[in-house]
Each structure stands twice: as C-alpha cells, then as structure tokens.
C-alpha cells in the first residue's frame, strides 16, 4: 500500500512537470495530497492500530485540500477573467 501511494505521488509529480495548464496542475496537486492521506491512514492501521493519529491527520488533510481547492479555483477563474488564458506561458505579469 505504501508503494501504491508512492507511485501515485510521483505520477502527480510527473504531471506537475509536464502539464502547462493551471487546472491540470491543480489535479496533479490533488493526486499528491491524496497519496499523502493514504500514507497517513496506512501507517496508522499497520504500525499503531490502537492510536488515532493518522486517522485524524487524514481527516485534517482532506479538509485542507478542500479549502485549498476552493481558493485555487477562485484564483484560476479570476486569472482567466483578466488574462483570458490559464496557460502558464501567458501568466508572466508577476515575472518582472
């Protein structure tokens, strides 16, 4: 299960490198966060079956992911309204 979550995480990293679109980058971030949540739950279930730390941290991780997605999508829609594109090549106003 740890190997599965590692594979998912690095698929997310690969996507983060290769995609050039803000929504795709957000999807890759979700993949990585999801892999981390799996790690928490698996460590809790197999190494410390009597504790609740990993369980609770997974819950908090899911909540933070939800908040982060809401803000990110608001930002993306605003960027699209201003620049008329969400392609990373065009978003250079903050560069200089």
């Amino acid at each position, binding site marked *: 299960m740890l190997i599965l979550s590692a594979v998912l995480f690095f698929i997310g990293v690969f996507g983060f490198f290769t995609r050039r679109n803000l929504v795709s980058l957000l999807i890759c971030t979700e*993949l990585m966060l999801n892999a981390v949540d799996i790690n928490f739950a698996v460590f809790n279930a197999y190494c410390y079956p009597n504790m609740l730390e990993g369980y609770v941290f*997974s819950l908090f991780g899911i909540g933070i992911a939800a908040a982060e997605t809401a803000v990110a999508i608001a930002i993306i829609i605003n960027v699209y309204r201003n620049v008329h594109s969400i392609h990373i090549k065009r978003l250079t106003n903050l560069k200089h």
Partner: protein
Amino acid sequence: MSINLVIFSGLALVMVIAALFAVTSSKIMRATTLLLFVLFGTAGLYFMLHYAFLGAVQITVYAGGIVVLLIFAVLLLGKGSVDITQTSMRRYLAGTITALTGMITTIYLIITTDFSAGNFTATDVPMKQLGEALMGTEKYNYILPFEVMSVLLLACTVGAILIARKK
C-alpha cells in the same frame, strides 16, 4: 486474506492506470473524471482498512465536493481549459527522470526499511472514540487543530468569494 489481496490488486491497478491517464490526457474534463476514479479507489482502500468514516469523508468531500468544483471550473473556463500546445520533449524528459528517480528511491527505502508493523487486526474505529479524540482537550486529543481547521475553512470561503467577485 487472499480475497483482500485480490481486492487490493484490483483497486491498485485501477488507481494507477486512472492516475496515469489523468496526468497525460490532453482533455481536462477527461482528466477530472479519471481523478474521480482515483479518489473512489482511495475510499475503497480506506474501507479495506476498516476506516469507514474516513472512507465516507473521502467520498463526500473529495469525490463530492472537490471534483464538482473542478468540473465547474472546467466548464466555466470553456475553451481556455484545453491544453493546446504540446509540451516540449525536454520537459517530458525532465519530468520522467525526476519522477522515476524519486519513485525508485522511495520504493527502495520502503522495501528495505523494517517498519515493525504489527499484524493487521480488522477492527472498526468506534465513532464515540473518534469524536472524543477530535473534541477532547487532553493528551492525544485534537480540539485545537479542529478549531483551527474550522477558522481556516471560514477564511478560505470568504477569501474565495472576495477573489472571484466582480469588481
């Protein structure tokens, strides 16, 4: 045990394939739908670990909330959400090398490390215990992170409305 292994293999196969296609597909709507499969597979893993509440939260928040938000964004952006330009070969190469190096290192470490994992006992966490852990103020209880999370969610909601509002 073997039936668990079969279920886990099926879930893992579906999740990895869906994640790969979600990352490489050029249509974002398709990528979002494939992400949904990965999230459902994760919920299945939680159910396999007998973490029923965590699985339910995963389905409601991730599959129900985040994916719907993503689909909203894709539909609102319309034409803008298509990846028109091809990514360059160099970028593909860099991404592949980084991901493969990291993956091999991590898997090697996971295989060679002795986690001293106890034998997995399939017991469901009772809701009462979980609620007391979330709301208690003693050691190993999580009232403070819980309240911080609620404030964070409120701040994010207000911030999202402020950002997305028309001038």
